[in-house]
């Protein structure tokens, strides 16, 4: 297989349609959600911003946590607005998502579903096209079975990028995005990193911040070379004493 195209340039985000994002493991749900939200985020270049919608069952919100707007990875946290719909079961979730997409009132919508059947996904795909909106189905576990989604992703967490100013702190979040199925080309795997300035997921192996990361890595290596383990608080303590 040849190298996959760079991300996200090869996959323009404001693509209107249905995608499916699955967490590789249940613990990767937060990463999968963050990825899904960016896939459906409203088009920032157009002056008008439609709100985005998040649909989840009440049990899901209790079990996995409720959305926290200040940590929501939107292009701009204040713009567009966020509507959270708490439903009782999966049937209602599919209905709410379809209504929202059809209405043309929302720019993007994410619904946490466990096992939508093919007919449901097909309806959702049509609704997304009709309303000119992007939709993503967020799945807790790997996607099996037929789906009408244009692309199907599998998201796993990765250790975060090094932080230049504090080697012991987690840096920008990283994740592994695997495109398992797509209708318009070959599947591929990318390592993505959160770019807080542009507020997008970008390819971790390229991009403007690569130089900064390298510097951070050198810094960490330098400390380790001095015989001081940057992750060991005891050696840090002795360093302070010395």
């Amino acid at each position: 297989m040849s190298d996959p195209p760079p991300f996200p340039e090869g996959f323009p985000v404001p693509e209107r349609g249905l995608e499916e994002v699955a967490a590789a493991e249940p613990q990767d749900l937060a990463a999968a959600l963050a990825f899904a939200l960016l896939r459906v985020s409203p088009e920032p270049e157009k002056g008008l911003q439609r709100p985005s919608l998040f649909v989840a069952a009440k049990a899901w919100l209790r079990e996995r946590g409720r959305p926290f707007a200040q940590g929501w990875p939107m292009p701009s946290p204040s713009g567009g607005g966020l509507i959270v719909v708490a439903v009782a079961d999966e049937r209602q979730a599919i209905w709410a998502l379809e209504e929202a997409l059809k209405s043309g009132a929302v720019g993007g919508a994410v619904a946490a579903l466990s096992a939508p059947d093919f007919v449901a996904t097909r309806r959702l795909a049509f609704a997304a096209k009709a309303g000119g909106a992007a939709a993503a189905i967020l799945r807790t576990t790997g996607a099996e079975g037929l789906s009408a989604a244009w692309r199907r992703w599998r998201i796993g967490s990765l250790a975060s990028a090094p932080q230049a100013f504090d080697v012991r702190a987690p840096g920008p979040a990283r994740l592994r995005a695997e495109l398992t199925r797509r209708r318009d080309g070959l599947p591929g795997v990318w390592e993505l990193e959160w770019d807080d300035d542009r507020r997008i997921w970008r390819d971790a192996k390229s991009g403007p911040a690569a130089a900064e990361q390298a510097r951070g890595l050198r810094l960490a290596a330098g400390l380790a070379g001095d015989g001081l383990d940057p992750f060991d608080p005891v050696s840090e303590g002795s360093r302070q004493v010395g």
Partner: protein
Amino acid sequence: MTVWTRSTLYQKDLVRSAEASDQKPIPFALVERNGRGLCLRAVNGAAQKLGLWRGQSQADARAMAPDLVTVPADPAAEALALQRLALWAERFSPCVALMADGPGVEGLALDMTGGTHLFGGEPAFIAAFEARLAKAGILARVAMADSLGAAWALARFGGLTQIAPEGGAREALADLPVEALRLDPEAVILLKRFGLQRIGDLYPLPRAGLARRFRGPRAGAMGLKVVERLDQALGFRAEPVVPVRPPPAYRSFQVFAEPITETAGVALYLPDLAKALAEQLQRDGQGARRLTLTGYRVDGATTSIEAGLSAASAQPSHLLRLLKEKGLEALDLGFGIDALMLSAPVAEPTLAQQEGLDGERAATEAAALAGLIDRLQAKLGEDAVQTPRPRGSWLPERSEGWDAASSLGFGAFDPVLRPRPILLFHPPERVEAIAELPDSAPARFTWRRVARRVVRAEGPERIAPEWWRLSPASPRPPRTRDYYRIEDETGRRYWLFREGLYGREDQDRTPEWWLHGVFA
């Protein structure tokens, strides 16, 4: 003005069961315990025929009618039943008031001013009203007069007279006993001692003397106010009527010749109702914020569905769609409904839709959003569709409030430069954590029975407690929180906090670790 009053008030289901058991009606009574032991509170027609009366002791009644069926009275259920009946009576008049002056004297007051011609005149209206109540198994007498007091008197003591002609209250009341004036029993006894048996006896008496004589110690209460009651009955003194619920300003009504028993029938008439209501609203430049569809059942009950709107609307198609979304199946039609009302209890001026500067698109998208929110709320519940709004607090769970979503605007959040999780657990989840130093980040922690080793940690971000919000429910003062952004060996990122500072806060409690959220 009409007063309807039940000669007996009882829970209908009990009566039904008593009457259904045999072809011949069984004497039936509700009993309550008072100062004289068990007494009859209400009796049905069969019991009345046997000479039983309200207030009689149960032992006496049993002696007169050995097969009397008695059931303990439930005043709360009776009040509820009367309330339900009042709502049903809104079918005849938008202004229906309860008259629950005491046990055995309950009734309804309907303001029928200018409305009886719709039912074919006063006698026809009274006949129709009584027939409907009888069909529902309720014994009632309906009377009509210029004033509330006169109608009350005629309904209870009027005999064959049920209608006092306009301006004829004085003659109609003259032969009735003084009890018909809604007086205190003490006042009645006193009047009778003076030989004043009938209301007509009071007419020639000098008012000043009457007022002075019946001032009494309890004059301030409802008590002995003979002159006031007389004036109210004769219409010299105004008496306010407080309706069970404020009459809706906008309503459309449909009466059926034959009862409708199927939801499909309701759906058939709904477009016309919605159109009529929308016309009324549009005429006044108003839009409905709340919709109620009420069905009036033949058995004296009502059934209704309600829908809320996030923005005022007067579009028939939108109103119709909302009600359908809410589900007409939720209407309990019972044995059928013979009238249907669509009302807008809450209406607001509609904002003029400007399609200008930022184009038609903004206006249509706002309208589409309002419609979407309404439909979601109608189907899923009022509190199912929410939007976050910033609040003035540093505590994460208090820094965001959740309001019902509205198309009029969304909360604007200032960018937070500190790390904040994408999903927040509320309430936080307890974790077992081990830290190498008391005040440092944890080295390991166990969350949901899985042990995790911390590889990298950032923090603390210290958030002081809001001591001014000390609640009486939790006697201990809130403690300082130290938040850490933590990454474990598998690359998952968590938001943990330690509640309490070692040795400095609340000496007898060791600090506890909590997981408050997860990062991407």
